[in-house]
């Protein structure tokens, strides 16, 4: 018989589900409230974690203890390296030996940044050019090694991983013209998770030729940034102060300071998140409480009947908790999905996230990432369900104590 399956399943769960179905409007309101709250929670958590971990990873991956830039370019440098905003800033190359002389500095390398100009000079879309010194370089080398396994030759360029996609360089080994000089794009740099992903790399020697040709706005012997490694056990902050003290033309950013501006913005946003989540939680508890108070009164006689046919107080509580948990879990699941979706889709419209050089989801090794997301999801479901239970506990406790005879009679008399 077809009905038999549904009959065998009849139990507390079936009763709870029927009760949820009986007033679908009320159920929808509760589920939506919890879903919105959980979505907010998920979104806020993802947002915060992504931004801070992206900044941390990016600054670690650069592999330099100090960033030395022209005075006033401190923010530009960070914006380029972390947020991939195109920036140009220059200082004379003669600063380089002066940095090298400072105590504690172990090795230095420099890069020169140049924005391409779409039009006559170049046949690549607008991008940032990075010229690096192959002899001293320790920033690009590890990535280069992984991509083409050798140094970059004269007339060769390599594209950052994002640039490759953005510029539509489908074919490797293509010829490109950059500032009237022919370049062979020999490969794509592995993803670095920094602003380097959005640049096209060439050797300093090639850049010098471009500068000599006069087709770029750049002057001879200008560089943009010096990366420095310091001796073990030295405090980057103090070495940085030393550098700034000795060379007034530069500003220094330590690895730890990198992204501090972003993190400051983030902590303000976090306060707003925390405040709205807490307020949302309080409102939701109140909503659940109000609705379950109404439900408890409405069902007084039914509860009396159940008690009369053998339900104990704890049976009644369990039935209600089951109903509440179903609501909470359903709302939390929807909220988790909604929050994740919002995060994914809004990532592009929040400048703080959009400008981060790496797609936030590509940072971690996948299993760890999935584990983390699962934990966040589970925690959110626990919070959503917990809030539901917190709101419903009062009314449930009130109703379970009624003597069956009284609760039955009370509302039966009202009804008839």
């Amino acid at each position, binding site marked *: 018989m077809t009905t038999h399956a549904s*009959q065998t399943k009849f139990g507390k769960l079936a009763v709870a589900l029927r009760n949820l179905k009986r007033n679908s409007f009320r159920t929808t309101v509760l589920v939506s409230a919890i879903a919105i709250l959980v979505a907010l929670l998920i979104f806020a958590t993802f947002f915060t974690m992504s931004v801070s971990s992206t900044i941390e990873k990016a600054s670690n991956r650069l592999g330099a203890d100090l960033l030395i830039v022209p005075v006033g370019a401190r923010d530009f440098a960070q914006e380029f390296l972390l947020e991939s905003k195109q920036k140009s800033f220059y200082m004379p190359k003669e600063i380089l030996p002066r940095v090298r002389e400072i105590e504690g500095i172990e090795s230095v390398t420099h890069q020169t940044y140049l924005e391409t100009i779409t039009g006559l000079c170049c046949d690549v879309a607008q991008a940032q050019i990075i010229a690096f010194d192959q002899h001293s370089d320790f920033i690009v080398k590890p990535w280069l090694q992984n991509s083409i396994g050798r140094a970059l030759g004269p007339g060769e360029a390599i594209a950052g991983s994002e640039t490759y996609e953005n510029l539509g360089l489908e074919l490797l080994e293509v010829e490109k013209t950059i500032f009237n000089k022919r370049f062979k794009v020999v490969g794509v740099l592995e993803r670095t998770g920094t602003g380097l992903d959005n640049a096209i790399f060439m050797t300093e020697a090639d850049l010098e030729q471009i500068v000599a040709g006069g087709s770029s706005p750049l002057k001879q012997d200008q560089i943009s940034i010096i990366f420095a490694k310091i001796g073990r056990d030295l405090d980057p902050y103090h070495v940085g102060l030393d550098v700034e003290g000795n060379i007034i033309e530069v500003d220094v950013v330590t690895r730890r300071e990198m992204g501090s501006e972003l993190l400051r913005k983030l902590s303000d946003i976090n306060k707003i998140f925390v405040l709205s989540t807490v307020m949302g939680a309080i409102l939701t508890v109140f909503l659940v409480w109000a609705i379950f108070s109404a439900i408890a009164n409405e069902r007084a006689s039914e509860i009396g*009947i*159940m008690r*009369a046919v*053998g339900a104990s107080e704890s*049976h009644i509580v369990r039935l209600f908790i089951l109903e509440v948990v179903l609501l909470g879990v359903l709302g939390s699941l929807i909220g988790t999905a909604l929050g994740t979706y919002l995060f994914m889709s809004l990532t592009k419209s929040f400048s703080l996230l959009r400008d981060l050089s790496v797609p936030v989801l590509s940072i971690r090794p996948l299993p760890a990432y999935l584990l983390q997301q699962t934990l966040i999801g589970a925690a959110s479901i626990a919070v959503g369900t917990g809030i539901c239970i917190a709101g419903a506990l009062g009314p449930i406790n009130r109703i379970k104590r009624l003597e069956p*005879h009284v609760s039955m009679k009370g509302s039966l008399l009202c009804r008839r």
Partner: protein
Amino acid sequence: MSQVEISSLNKVYTVGGEQITAVHDLSLTIEKGDLLAVVGHSGSGKTTLISMIGGILKPTSGTIVVDSTDICTLDDAQLSEYRNRKIGFMFQFASLLPVLTAMENVLLPRIFAPGGGSNHHRRAEEYLDVLGLADKRHAFPGELSGGQQRRVAIARALINEPELILADEPTGDLDEETEADILRLFHQLNREKEISFVIVTHSSEIAAECRKRCRMSHGVLEQEV
């Protein structure tokens, strides 16, 4: 062997500072297999009495000894189990859960019964068939007539095979034919399964068919044997 032994039972309701004595110093013995009718005017305390016997209302004083245990001393879990396993209750008013089908209402006491047993579905179907509700198994209470709802409540009272059925004006708003059917069923269950019955009724005809009769007036019980 006496099944239920009630001694010096009192119930005083307090409503807004005023005290109403609904049952006064009542003693009664129900033997196994009894078919007892309780008659009396409205407000004489009949519902109050069987509610206390059924464990859904705490007496103000007195004892109700069932199987050598005073049910007034049981805790909530024990008392609930007593209601679930030993008592079948038929209430004065419609008492089905509106969100459950006839079948599910019949099975409701099973939800609260400690595990075991698997033929409840078959039994529930049988009872509904016997009560003429074979085609109403999946109907909701709102789709049933008053008489049909009562019969579902009877099937529900029987599902856990109780030892004692407490029926509070079970045929109060039914037509004579249905009333006769139900009474026939009670007599049959009483005979074949040795289920004891306490039937609260207004009808002297029903009372006349019962083996024992009592009358309540103003909370006091008069045996009429």
